[in-house]
């Protein structure tokens, strides 16, 4: 605009029209990213207009209004609003544009007068002085109007654009290892739905229709050198708006001390809120705020300073919660939430880099990069703690019924979610050695293992399950009854395999692992049968296969022996538990095959004695009774002769 000033004529006669031309040029020149070429064109245009003007003048065209008179008019306009309780921009577009015209007029006069050699002219000096005072009045007013528009037309956007995490993730895992029951297998990953979240949403934080008004105020204020006032007012309102929005998100303003003292359930929900708020604040709110800044201020200044001022306090708040979490003890139950936080931040770093690209924003960028590192360390530590917690989880008493141990359920349901974090875990765990010192030997994975079974996460997963298996073996030793020990191990290894097979975990464990573990639980199944039924069946065995039937007394004795043994088994094993119906069914079938076959043969060989009272159970009875086993509800046959 300096170039423009230089073209101002030095005699008062041309003032009016050239001022008009100047005005136009200035309006165009307000776009501050003009190329040199364009600027030159504007200057040429300015000169051209001056020439036309002098032509009109020489033809005796319109005369020009006295400068003083024009100032008075504009001043009247500006002063009249001083006593008006209404806001100008609330009174209609005509009022506001007239007001802006008046301000423009004053600005034009001031610019024009400055170009004159005013020092000698007392009258012009007086006008200039007056104009400056009116301008100050107007600027002060415009600042108020600006604040009012910004507040009045603030848009509250609901944080619904981003749905919170699926309910599945809201299960709170805790250190008790007991709270988790099997959940319905709605395996469709919430990740897939949430990937939509990465799309950018930009919303209008201020009604779009007032943006031109705000810009017009910005323009006159910057043109009149009141840009600082504009920025401070703008920053003030927008900063407060962000803080209020932040309050709506209910991300509590917590001190580090508070966070460290927090109990796990509330901490978990705060961590959830944080991940959620981070996304909304950075991806929607701040992206939108940046656009607003660009829209309003982009033509006048570099917006980075204002943007940083608006956002910094809130950002620090988010940052500090992250720091507090990263500082806390890294209990295993925190792992998934930490991974959520880590992934969210990792995901947002690009946005953060873009939003705070300039030097002034380096503070913010740096802090978040460091926070990411610390969250990663915390997640790794929590992962390790998870492994330690599994191997050190001890029991004093055998788990009743030999069913699936809660530790097993907890661990398997927990790690079932790991594949969702595969990339992150691979990244974090790649320098961490899987626990090779684990007593359960790691199955040899041959050359044919696929990528997913050899990735760091897969190795750590297998290390976790071998710790788990080791611990389960330890727990199985608590059973005095060998058969029950096998039931327990069968149940638990079967559960382990089912969990792996039924989820994405299978990709990481691989078929080889599954085969081996199938074999393991089948082995325990066989061992059980041997431990329980071999002795029972052996009672029925014919010592003398040559003869067609045994003596009555032998038969009676054998029968009695069988009855006692069977009743004993019935009594104890009805209270045992095989939670998986298929597994229970399989075991019954193979038991039946063995027992019923032996019993039928036994009775079949001795048809003469079958009617004897000592045959307490028919084959069908035994078949039926076997169905009562492993249902987890103890029954007894001893006193009930028949049912």
């Amino acid at each position, binding site marked *: 605009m300096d170039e423009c000033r230089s073209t101002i004529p030095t005699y008062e006669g041309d003032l009016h029209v050239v001022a008009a031309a100047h005005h136009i040029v200035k309006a165009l020149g307000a776009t501050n990213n003009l190329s040199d070429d364009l600027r030159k064109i504007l200057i040429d245009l300015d000169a051209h207009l001056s020439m036309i003007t002098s032509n009109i003048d020489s033809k005796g065209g319109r005369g020009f209004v006295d400068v003083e008179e024009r100032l008075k008019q504009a001043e009247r306009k500006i002063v009249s609003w001083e006593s008006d309780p209404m806001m100008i921009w609330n009174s209609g577009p005509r009022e506001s544009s007239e007001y802006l015209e008046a301000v423009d007029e004053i600005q034009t006069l001031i610019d024009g007068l400055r170009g004159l050699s005013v020092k000698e002219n007392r009258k012009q000096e007086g006008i200039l002085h007056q104009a400056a*005072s009116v301008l100050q009045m107007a600027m002060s007013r415009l600042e108020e109007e600006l604040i009012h528009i910004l507040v009045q037309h603030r848009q509250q956007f609901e944080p619904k654009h981003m749905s919170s995490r699926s309910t599945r993730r809201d299960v709170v895992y805790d250190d008790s290892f007991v709270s988790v029951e099997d959940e319905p297998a709605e395996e469709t990953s919430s990740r897939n739905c949430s990937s939509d979240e990465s799309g950018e949403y930009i919303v209008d934080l201020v009604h779009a229709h007032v943006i031109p008004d705000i810009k017009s105020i910005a323009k006159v204020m910057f043109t009149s050198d009141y840009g600082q006032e504009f920025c*401070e*007012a703008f920053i003030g309102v927008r900063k*407060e708006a962000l803080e209020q929005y932040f309050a709506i998100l209910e991300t509590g303003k*917590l*001190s580090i001390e*508070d966070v460290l003292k927090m109990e796990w359930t509330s901490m978990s929900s705060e961590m959830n809120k944080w991940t959620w708020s981070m996304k909304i604040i950075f991806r929607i709110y701040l992206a939108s705020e940046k656009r607003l800044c660009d829209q309003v201020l982009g033509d006048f200044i570099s917006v980075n300073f204002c943007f940083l001022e608006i956002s910094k306090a809130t950002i620090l708040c988010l940052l500090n919660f992250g720091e507090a979490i990263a500082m806390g003890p890294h209990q295993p139950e925190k792992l998934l939430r930490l991974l959520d936080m880590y992934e969210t931040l990792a995901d947002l770093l690009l946005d953060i880099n873009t939003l705070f690209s300039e030097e002034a924003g380096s503070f913010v960028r740096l802090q978040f990069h460091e926070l990411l590192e610390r969250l990663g360390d915390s997640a790794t530590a929590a992962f390790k703690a998870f492994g330690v917690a599994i191997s050190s989880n001890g029991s004093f008493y055998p788990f009743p019924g030999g069913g699936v141990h809660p530790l097993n359920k907890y661990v398997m349901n927990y790690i079932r979610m790991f594949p969702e974090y595969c990339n992150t875990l691979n990244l974090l765990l790649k320098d961490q050695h899987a626990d090779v010192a684990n007593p359960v030997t790691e199955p040899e994975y041959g050359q044919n293992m696929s990528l997913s079974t050899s990735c760091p996460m897969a190795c750590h997963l297998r290390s976790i399950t071998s710790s788990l298996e080791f611990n389960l073996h330890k727990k199985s030793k608590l059973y005095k009854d060998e058969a029950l020990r096998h039931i327990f191990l069968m149940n638990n290894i079967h559960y382990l395999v089912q969990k792996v097979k039924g989820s994405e975990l299978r990709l990481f464990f691989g078929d080889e692992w599954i085969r081996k573990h199938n074999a393991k639980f089948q082995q325990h199944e066989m061992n059980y049968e041997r431990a329980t039924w071999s002795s029972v069946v052996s009672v029925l065995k014919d010592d003398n296969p040559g003869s067609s039937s045994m003596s009555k007394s032998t038969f009676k004795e054998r029968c009695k022996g069988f009855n006692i043994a069977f009743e004993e088994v019935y009594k104890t094993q009805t209270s045992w538990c095989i939670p998986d119906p298929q597994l229970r069914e399989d075991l019954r079938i193979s038991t039946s095959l063995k027992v019923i076959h032996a019993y039928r043969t036994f009775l079949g060989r001795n048809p003469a004695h079958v009617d004897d009272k000592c045959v307490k159970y028919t084959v069908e009875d035994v078949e039926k009774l076997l169905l009562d086993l492993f249902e987890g509800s103890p029954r007894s046959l001893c006193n009930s002769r028949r049912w």
Partner: protein
Amino acid sequence: MPATEYQGSFLGRISIRRNQIIAVDGNHELDLEDLELFQKHVSDRFSELLSPTDDVPVDTLLSISWLRKLLDVFLCCEAEFKAILLMGRDPSQISKPPLDRLIPEFLDRAVKALDLCNGVINGVESFRHCQKLAEIAVSALDQNPIRDGQARRAKKALNSLMSAMNLDDKEGSNTKTTERSWSFGRRGGNKDRPPGHFRSLSWQVAKNWSAAKQIQTMTTNLVAPRGGEASGLASPVYIMSVIMVFVMWALVAAIPCQERTGLATHFPVPKQFSWAHSIIGLQEKIGDEWKKKEKKGMAGLLEEMQKMEKLGQSLIEFTDSFQFPGETEKVEEAAAQVAELSETCRRMEEGLLPLQMQIREVFHRIVRSRTEFLDVLDQGGKSSAPLV
């Protein structure tokens, strides 16, 4: 940075000697020479802050550059402290009485210090707004001749500056009033409300959090070691605690922070320790300043802000009575003040961000040390547990 060089060489030396000593005497707890050296360094560093030697450019007490030196001192002492306590030492040594109690207490203090760092970083943010307002006043008055319009412009900015400075510590709830007054859509009674007033210091923590109370609780169980403990590891823990409390206290006195009522209450530092003399001296000086200012709500004792307040006040008087073209004498006087204000703004422009970064550095350092201590306590706890 000279501080780190120094620190590096010191750490190197101490670790070498420690290793030698440990090799000779496994039960050795604390080398007295280490403790004396530490005390001497603490004393030297703080006396430098209290009354700098001639060859150092003088930083006015509680100015931005002084605070940065204070933080440097903190970082140096902290590094040395950690070297003494942790380097080459068997974890079991610090997990037995009285350290098993003193270290966790120290770490509790550290957590409170972290919250204070955050509060103060936020307070520094609030200075920026003041700086911008002062800059407006400077650009309005830095003209020849000054016209009425510009004088009024400056006055408006300065009034906003004053009210921004005089926000009460408790005035985090300011937003409600402004929301109300804005929602009228009429320019009723709030016409005199200086714009910018609405920009309260936005606090980051829960409403009932109080900086003064934090500092107070940091000192509650802070007792100088006596008897045999005085020559043991309890001593450096005590010294570092005092330093930490003092530095946090000075920061909070200088920089706005949530709820500072009662900050003037001295925390007791026993006078018999020679290392503490300068700290006590500084404490008295700052405490006196605080008492002078406490009555009025204020932005803090930061030298630049005080200067800004003083200059602002007198420039308001100037603009109040100003009528074009103004008395030459007064105009000249004002011009000098404007130049001074402009210089103050420049110092803030240059110093505030680095100050903020440095407080952040202190923050991270405390976090790191805390982690290291916790690790050592953890290890110590394990190794001292009876082996089965």
